[in-house]
């Protein structure tokens, strides 16, 4: 269970956090971009801000970096109160989506920039630039201009430039979204390796759930200027606390159900005419009445349509995906009338076949019907 669900007062204090955000909020000429947020980022942690476009990820990042001034709240980096400190004194490294390499400087000059502002000696600068370029495997490109590099190489220069100053926190705003799929995967692996090696506290912004799941120590899922849930990737994927998180991260099948009874651990529901008993991980389950039942596709099992605890459905179409096939089932009890399951490509069923959907006893979550959609 995540112990970091946003709360009103920050109290727990084990080792002091690398970044501590205390009720920081931001509006732009009246419209709220970020509601007050509380968040502690541990030292060496890779924390991802994940959420749909416009949810406030960049705003939060810019507040940490100091490019925006918080309307309220306070911000600490390594215990230092930095709310009033200008960005160039915060000692943070930043990598932007479009790289933002200085086009009028070559690679070495780009990387050396942060050292020159710190009046590091020439010899040391040269040495550290070399090291940083070695770290991103670009030793041989020191004399090139940014536009003579490929997208992936530019991204690496940007990373080297941010790392060479040994920042207290590394911030990345959708750094890979301009790269194509293969390069993107390669860069993800590379960044993650460098980050763990250096033990660098990292805040990573993305709206790509797969990227977030694969790279993060913890993920903060945001929507509409709020953090909706914070937790490890497994917690987020397996135990989403709200309908929004469940559908935004991973695929979700949602059934309209009625909650008949609930006990400490178990819940008795009706889905259509099927009666189910489930035990859930949820902290707060809604009151009996109409609810939405959430299950991941890979937790659903295909059985005969006759079984008593199976939800009846019909195959609508099967979509070939190479390594597997997606079975889309027409199911009257499902929200939107459709349920999706993945099966090996060879086990795809013809349209029209009647099947039953069996749900596992543990895993599904129950949300109040009026739970948010956004």
């Amino acid at each position, binding site marked *: 269970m995540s112990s970091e669900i946003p709360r009103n007062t920050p109290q727990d204090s084990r080792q002091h956090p690398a970044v501590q955000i205390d009720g920081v909020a931001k509006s732009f000429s009246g419209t709220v971009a970020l509601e007050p947020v509380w968040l502690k980022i541990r030292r060496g942690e890779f924390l991802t801000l994940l959420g749909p476009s416009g949810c406030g990820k960049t705003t939060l990042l810019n507040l940490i970096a100091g490019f925006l001034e918080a309307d309220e709240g306070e911000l600490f980096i390594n215990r230092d109160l930095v709310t009033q400190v200008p*960005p*160039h004194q915060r000692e943070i490294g*930043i990598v932007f989506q479009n790289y933002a390499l*200085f*086009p*009028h400087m070559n690679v070495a000059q780009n990387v050396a*920039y942060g050292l020159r502002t710190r009046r590091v000696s020439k010899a040391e600068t040269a040495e550290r630039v070399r090291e940083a370029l070695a770290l991103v495997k670009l030793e041989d490109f020191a004399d090139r201009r940014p*536009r003579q590099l490929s997208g992936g190489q530019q991204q690496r220069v940007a990373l080297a430039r941010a790392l060479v100053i040994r920042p207290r926190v590394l*911030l990345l705003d959708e750094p890979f979204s301009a790269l194509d799929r293969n390069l993107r995967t390669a860069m993800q692996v590379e960044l993650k390796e460098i980050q763990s090696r250096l033990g660098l506290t990292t805040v990573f912004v993305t709206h790509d759930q797969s990227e977030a799941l694969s790279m993060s120590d913890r993920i903060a899922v945001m929507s509409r200027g709020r953090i909706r849930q914070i937790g490890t990737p497994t917690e987020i994927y397996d135990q989403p606390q709200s309908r929004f998180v469940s559908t935004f991260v991973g695929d979700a099948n949602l059934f309209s159900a009625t909650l008949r009874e609930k006990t400490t651990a178990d819940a008795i529901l009706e889905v259509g005419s099927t009666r189910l008993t489930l035990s859930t991980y949820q902290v707060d389950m809604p009151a009996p009445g109409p609810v939405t039942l959430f299950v991941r596709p890979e937790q659903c099992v295909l059985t005969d349509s006759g079984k008593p605890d199976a939800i009846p459905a019909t195959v609508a179409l099967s979509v070939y995906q190479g390594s597997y096939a997606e079975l889309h089932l027409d199911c009257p009890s499902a929200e939107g009338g459709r349920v999706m399951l993945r099966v090996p490509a060879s086990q795809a069923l013809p349209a029209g076949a009647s099947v039953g959907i069996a749900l596992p006893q543990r895993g599904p979550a129950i949300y109040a019907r009026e739970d948010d959609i956004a």
Partner: protein
Amino acid sequence: MSKRPFLGWFASPSILIAFAIAASFLAIVQYSLRAHVPGSLNPGGLTLDNFTTLWKAVYGQAFLNTVLLCFWTALFTLLIGYPLAFAMVRAKSARLRSAILLISLTPLFLGEIVRTYSWMIVLGNRGFVNAVLMQMGLIDRPIDFMFTMTGVVIALVHFTLPIVVVMLAAALSHIDRNLERAATSLGAGRVRVFATVTLPLSIPGIVAATSTAFAWTFSAFATPQMIGGGKVQTISTLVYQVGFASFNFPLAASLSLVGLLFTIAVLAIFNTGIRRLEKIGAH
């Protein structure tokens, strides 16, 4: 596939206009090679005399004046226009931005006469500036602005400022803000960010704006005429004077021809400058 519908229809009006331009240009070339017959508007026989006449001190002086005028105007316009453009692009409040834009733009649409006339009132010996300074007791003799290079430059700076501001603002607004943020995150303070990132990246804009300022100044007429009051002769005032006071059209033609070649040469230099800068990658 119909390959080029409308080509003829759409191109012909402009071809006509191009002919008119070419013809008037040829007329100038032709006149510049003809002799002036005093008291007559029709030129005489072929001659190169007009060009030899241009070697006289008056004309040399006018050329020199024009170049100096262009130089100082471009320089000061740049020095004033850059901060203005910068403020306009970077102003946080949209209202301030609009205000700066409108204020710096309105003069662009006022034409040479209104602006020059206004400056005459400002700069005269009993004009606004001198009156204020005298009443404040800062000076006891009026400062000469009218009929001086200084006065003409002041008015010309005002004249070219809007277009320079617009061009610089366009250049500045296309600089990726993330570049500056990146520099800031790397520890650079505001002055340093400006000197090492913003300024170098706006150089192509500066060059373009300067060359435009140059061209505008070069062809300005009313300002040097009215504020220079005959004391500051430029090529444009001379062309008018030679043409309409002496009715020596052949000489006027050769004068404007040389002026034109001169402009082209200067702009060509600017252009190669830009290209070189773009190669360096300040873009």
